């Protein structure tokens, strides 16, 4: 019987949650790397036993861990993220020039077809790639060097490259997003990059609300069967693009707030998308103290609140950008983790929710592997 494995990164370690295809009874393993911040874990689509994890600490720096047995055992691998050439400067919070400095790995994106190839999105924002199972890392310098890098500026969470989306139909095309620089696309395997932010409007964040770069994109999601249709949760606004990011238009529609972090696409319905509205950038908790996932079956615009099984009073948690994932079972499973340490799961497309665990450390990321 098929099953699912959730890879949960938290502020104090990683947890692996497993269930069979019914997704009713869960086994909880962890904490792994107890006490360390686990920004992200993700398994290889080509070999689900291969899992990468970003382990970090303000005290002791960055570690990257690799498992070859589905998360049962781990070994530290390469952790040297050295910028290509002379790194130069970007803008600091106060507008002054600030040297590029590695701080941590936010996101690890394994290749779709090679377990030994994995991409890392780091802070200060840059894209790295390993082709030897994370033993060594090399920057893809065309991104920072495309022309605007010296004008990029951090958001409140740091200047992080947090989203890496690989196009399954074209191995040379990928999308990335940076807070607060915006979204970028390569069509030549990472050699050259282009900002793809036309249609983004950020009147509260930028002096020029329609600037080519500088937008605080929070996350981008794509359905693998429609690789040129992208959905974006920006700082404010939910947007979509139907031309590989060349242009975007807002689809926030009737959401109670269009601020948020997480966004994802149903595994079998490319026009069904999910977000978790958050009150505002000042508050970082759900409107009205009600934790609601919103689902649109029309690719945005029209949204339906999903509340069954979720707290509808006195709930003031946040759901971070990498803390939502979908499995590929039918019905589709949706999962998300909160800053309060809950991981919620739905085995029915989001119609109803159950807390899988309630009291983990604050959740930074949730990924899911659908196992044969």
């Amino acid at each position, binding site marked *: 019987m098929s099953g699912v494995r959730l890879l949960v990164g938290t502020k104090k370690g990683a947890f692996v949650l497993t269930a069979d295809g019914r997704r009713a009874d869960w086994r909880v393993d962890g904490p792994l790397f*107890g*006490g*360390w911040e686990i920004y992200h874990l993700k398994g290889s689509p080509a070999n689900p036993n291969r899992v990468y994890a970003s382990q970090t*600490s*303000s*005290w*002791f*720096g*960055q*570690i990257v861990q690799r498992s070859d047995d589905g998360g049962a055992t781990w070994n*530290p691998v390469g*952790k*040297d993220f*050295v910028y290509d050439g002379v790194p130069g400067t970007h803008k600091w919070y106060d507008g002054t020039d600030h040297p590029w400095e590695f701080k941590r790995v936010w996101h690890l994106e394994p290749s779709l077809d090679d377990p030994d190839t994995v991409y890392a999105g780091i802070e200060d924002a840059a894209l790295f790639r390993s082709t030897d199972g994370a033993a060594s890392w090399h920057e893809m310098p065309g991104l920072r060097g495309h022309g605007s890098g010296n004008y990029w500026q951090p958001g409140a969470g740091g200047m992080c490259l947090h989203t890496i989306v690989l196009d399954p139909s074209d191995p040379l095309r990928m999308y990335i997003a940076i807070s607060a620089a915006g979204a970028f696309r390569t069509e030549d395997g990472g050699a050259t990059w282009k900002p793809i932010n036309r249609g983004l409007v950020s009147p509260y964040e930028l002096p020029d609300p329609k600037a080519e770069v500088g937008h605080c994109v929070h996350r981008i999601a794509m359905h693998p069967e429609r690789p040129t249709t992208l959905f974006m949760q920006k700082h404010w606004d939910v947007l979509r693009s139907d031309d590989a990011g060349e242009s975007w238009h807002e689809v926030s529609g009737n959401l109670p707030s269009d601020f948020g972090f997480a966004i994802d696409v149903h595994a079998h319905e490319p026009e069904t998308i999910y977000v978790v509205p958050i009150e505002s950038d000042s508050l970082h908790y759900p409107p009205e103290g009600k934790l609601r996932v919103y689902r649109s079956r029309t690719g945005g615009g029209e949204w339906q609140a999903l509340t069954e099984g979720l707290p509808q009073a006195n709930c003031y948690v946040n759901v971070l950008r990498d803390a939502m994932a979908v499995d590929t079972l039918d019905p589709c499973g949706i999962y998300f983790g909160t800053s309060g340490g809950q991981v919620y799961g739905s085995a029915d497309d989001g119609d109803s929710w159950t807390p899988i665990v309630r009291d983990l450390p604050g959740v930074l990321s949730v990924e899911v592997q659908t196992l044969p």
Partner: protein
Amino acid sequence: MIRVVLPYHLRGLARIDGEVELDLAAKPATVGDLLAAVEVRYPVLRGTIRDAATGARRPLVRFFACGEDLSFVAFDEELPAAVAAGREPFLVVGAMAGG
């Protein structure tokens, strides 16, 4: 033998139980010799105590020995005699931070 006590998280990372004992070739040995020997024996710790690129002590790591804070001594300073003789351990400490 020179005795080194590592903080909890680095012992876990390097899978170390208890103190680390080092027999340093350099006589007299310096703080830098000690740190380099730790990194050679446990490569996973390279970059966790001092920056892998610059060699500077990480900002939230402290060195204590013999009741003194050695965090700000130069790496080419000799170790205290009691540490060099193994009578006192050299402590690598995660600095107090947060609330």
